[in-house]
């Protein structure tokens, strides 16, 4: 029995106990239901166990040599390859992915571009206060959930930040205040107590709340009597009082605040509001944390930043980084690609119809371990080991702290890890060049 790290979601809990004999995992203690399902993927019925190629419309099993040669042939025939995914693999594999993109003059982007990447664009202009989970555990006394629902998406988060007892917060739940802002009454509302505040805001009116709070910081009596966006005057005053008098506060934001708008930039205005509040704060400060999905979404930007000095997407030309500022959405919409390599994700399911239909027109190379929707439309499928259980490496948690993932059991005999597979592809492309 030993303590290992779970790779079910971006919280990367490192206090999970498993019992294993090196081949199977038969006891899991401490993991929530999302983590348990991750451990069950080892023996799942929908697991891909062989490389496959689509011949005459059907996927058939082939040998590794045939699958790798076919992949190299597709890449060599194309002049504008597109690489996407990279959020469910280790940092070492992400580095190999960027090297592969450089080798084939491709465009590479991770899931973060449609999720959290927008915050980093505004970060360089205004600045942001980041914090770590240990600091929240020990010092925070105000927690705000804005457009996020961790009770359904990251079950153990509320356990670790709200109910736990830290060094300076030994009484735990009683000393912490929770504020939830959401238009729908979700499961996160059920952990509220008497001192907490539940704000049912009208849909899509978060910008009005931010602007009213900003005005109130600069001048008094800016809050109208009938309230703003469905919240009444008393609640708004209480909210501002909590924000300016808390010793240490954290705001968790989710997908609802990352939506595009025509006339304004919501993230920029939110960061400006936090800056104003922190200037007026007498004792402490308010920080920001983004709740994301896949367990290594934060890692890709770190790898790109430390190796190439840029974050977000990378476009290579003549094996050098091109100074182009385009996004995945634009590339797909304008059909500026002629083959795609998808790793560890399922774009046919999570992209809108206008983009997924364009993606399906060109050949798709899929590197994954379960039969998702993209599997049914792929041209060639290469299976890999499950990261965090069958292969080890580095990953970044949602508060940008690096955590080591462990290897618990061996993968099936003919299945490589993501890191090794990408290296094999680079080697094969190099050797074909010399022929």
């Amino acid at each position: 029995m030993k303590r290992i790290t779970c790779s079910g979601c971006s919280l990367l809990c490192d206090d999970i106990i498993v019992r294993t004999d090196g081949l199977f995992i038969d006891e899991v203690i401490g993991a929530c239901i999302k983590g348990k399902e991750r451990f069950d993927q080892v023996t799942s019925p929908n697991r891909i166990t062989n490389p496959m190629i689509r011949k005459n419309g059907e996927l058939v099993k082939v040998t590794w040599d045939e699958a790798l040669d076919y992949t190299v042939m597709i890449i060599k025939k194309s002049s504008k390859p597109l690489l996407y995914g990279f959020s469910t693999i280790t940092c070492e594999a992400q580095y190999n992915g960027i090297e592969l993109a450089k080798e084939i003059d491709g465009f590479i982007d991770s899931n973060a571009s449609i999720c959290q990447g927008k915050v980093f664009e505004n970060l360089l202009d205004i600045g942001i206060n980041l914090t770590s989970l240990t600091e929240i555990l020990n010092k925070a006394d105000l927690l705000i959930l804005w457009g996020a629902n961790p009770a359904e998406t990251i079950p153990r988060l509320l356990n670790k930040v709200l109910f736990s007892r830290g060094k300076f917060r030994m009484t735990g739940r009683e000393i912490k205040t929770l504020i939830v802002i959401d238009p729908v009454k979700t499961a996160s509302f059920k952990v509220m107590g008497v001192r907490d505040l539940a704000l049912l805001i009208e849909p899509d009116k978060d910008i009005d709340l931010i602007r009213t709070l900003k005005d109130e910081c600069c001048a008094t009596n800016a809050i109208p009597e009938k309230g703003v966006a469905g919240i009444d005057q008393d609640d708004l005053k209480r909210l501002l009082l909590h924000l300016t008098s808390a010793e240490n506060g954290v705001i968790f934001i989710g997908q609802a605040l990352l939506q595009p708008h025509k006339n304004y930039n919501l993230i920029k205005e939110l960061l400006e509001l936090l800056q104003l509040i922190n200037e007026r704060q007498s004792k402490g400060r308010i920080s920001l944390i983004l709740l994301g999905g896949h367990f290594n979404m934060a890692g890709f930007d770190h790898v790109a930043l430390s190796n190439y000095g840029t974050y977000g997407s990378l476009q290579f030309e003549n094996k050098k980084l091109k100074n182009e500022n385009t996004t995945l959405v634009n590339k797909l919409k304008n059909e500026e690609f002629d083959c795609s390599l998808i790793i560890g994700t399922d774009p046919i399911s999570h992209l809108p119809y206008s983009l997924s239909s364009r993606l399906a027109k060109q050949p798709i190379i899929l590197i994954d371990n379960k039969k998702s929707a993209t599997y049914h439309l792929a041209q060639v499928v290469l299976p890999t080991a499950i990261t965090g259980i069958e292969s080890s490496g580095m990953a970044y948690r949602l508060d940008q702290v690096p955590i080591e993932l462990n290897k618990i059991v061996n993968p099936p005999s003919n299945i490589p890890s993501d890191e090794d597979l990408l290296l094999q592809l680079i080697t094969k492309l190099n050797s074909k060049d010399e022929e």
Partner: protein
Amino acid sequence: MELYKFLPKTNCKKCGKPTCMAFALDLLQGKVKVDECTPLLEPKYQTQYNALKDMLGKEEGKQKELRINVDTDLCDGCGICVTVCPVNARYCPPSLSGKAPDYPPENHQLFQVKKGKCELLNLKHCRRLDAEGRERECRVCETYCPREAIKIEYV
């Protein structure tokens, strides 16, 4: 609690219990009968006396056991009950900061999260049986579960 509402709430101690709340708890468990609260037999408490007799019916005086039910269909393994239980917090240091306690479980540990669901190990050291005074009315696991999957009942 519904039974406490109908008692005089004077804490006069004529029944031998320290508070009216303790009397209500013993009434629920069948350890005492309604007639043992002598102020209730006076005419001004007639409606409350009748209401209590109606609510308990035939169950009055029958010995009842504590049972804590965890609904495994609703549970999602968040571990809040493990962190919040005062017995767990005293005897298992990792659960103070939200971490999973050691395995095999310590003697006093009540809740454990196994295979993604919460499991009740033993009720021996639960506050409702083991403690004195106001700590016997402990209901933290039932109050703080976000899915309302834990139910405390007497059968």
